[in-house]
């Protein structure tokens, strides 16, 4: 009898917690809200030691792990591999002054790689930003508002409307082969990698993750702005 009463009490507490959670989430602001069913393909994949993130393919790719090897190996300059030392150089000479947004220029240096993402250095990002490529900030909204790469758009992967944002981006009819830069906080932050997996599954196949992220951009004094997305 006691056991039954205790089980009933425990079930009541658990049910009350579930109810409170659902109501609180329904009433929460966009930045605090979560989608009830998460979509994290690598939720059970343990990062390798000394390496925070292991590239992995999205579900749409059959779950096969993506190679971390850069498809641009041998081409110079181009995106660098994650584990390799920075192999790229900043744009110099006439190249640095030629701010062309021609897709051919972009594709010549960053051809589509058909992987969820390839990591690139800050020099590559500076080159791409100067040419007006789409830049997506995967950090939380509050972090974005405190400062972000100029013209970057906010795509906070941990907030509830991320799938709607991805759908809206797809709806813009962009060419999936044109490079898109994604970044978060560098270090062991993998929000940009998670965003890349979502976008790769949505048809983008030239996603370039800024390996060192926002702290590196600040350090190199890249163009940035504060405040909400306009």
């Amino acid at each position: 009898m006691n056991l039954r009463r205790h089980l009933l009490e425990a079930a009541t507490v658990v049910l009350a917690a579930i109810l409170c959670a659902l109501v609180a989430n329904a009433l929460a602001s966009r930045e605090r809200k979560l989608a009830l069913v998460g979509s994290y393909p690598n939720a059970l994949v343990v990062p390798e030691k000394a390496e925070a993130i292991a590239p992995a393919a999205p579900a749409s790719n059959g779950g096969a792990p993506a190679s971390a090897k850069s498809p641009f190996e041998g081409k110079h300059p181009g995106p660098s591999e994650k584990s390799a030392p920075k192999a790229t150089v900043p744009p110099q000479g006439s190249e640095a002054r030629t701010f062309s947004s021609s897709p051919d220029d972009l594709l010549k240096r960053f051809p589509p790689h058909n992987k969820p993402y390839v990591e690139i250095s800050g020099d590559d990002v500076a080159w791409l930003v100067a040419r007006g490529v789409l830049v997506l900030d995967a950090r939380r909204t509050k972090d974005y508002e405190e400062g972000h790469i100029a013209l970057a758009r906010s795509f906070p992967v941990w907030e509830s409307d991320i799938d709607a944002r991805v759908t809206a981006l797809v709806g813009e009819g962009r060419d999936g082969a044109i490079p898109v830069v994604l970044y978060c906080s560098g270090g062991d932050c993998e929000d940009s990698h998670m965003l890349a997996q979502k976008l790769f599954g949505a048809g983008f196949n030239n996603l370039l993750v800024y390996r060192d992220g926002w702290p590196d951009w600040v350090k190199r004094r890249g163009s940035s702005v504060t405040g909400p997305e306009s």
Partner: protein
Amino acid sequence: MTPKEALASPWLTVRVQIALGLFFVAAALPKLVDPPSFAHMVYNYRLVPGAFVNLMALVMPWLELLAGLALILGIWRRVSTGLVGALLLVFIAAISLNLARGNAIDCGCFDVAQANKTIDERLADMRLDILRDLGMLLMVAQILWVKGREGHKIVPSTL
């Protein structure tokens, strides 16, 4: 008074109960304020299937809060103590498993902000977190032991 009698005294038990409840309420509040950050913490443990990460991040803080409040207020003490004990066992197992496989994570126990720590600092913190949780598990054991020994004699009025 023998040590055993001192350990079983209602005076001590009520204080242990309230302290444990306060720990859990304090642990729940930051998670309730920022569920996405806590979901990120849950994800970092790499133990919860992707579909359930958000649900766990939403429900667990409320479970901590309700169980903690029940302990503080002396409501359904045996059940709330049992729930707190079960949560602590889950926390200890989750941190230990990640410690064993070298996955350095921020515990997310009392703070959900990303701490910019090195891997070694995180691993050291995880060991301390396990010790802290074991200490709280001892508090749970004391409450349950006294309740088993004396039935339902513990009341807040013994404060």
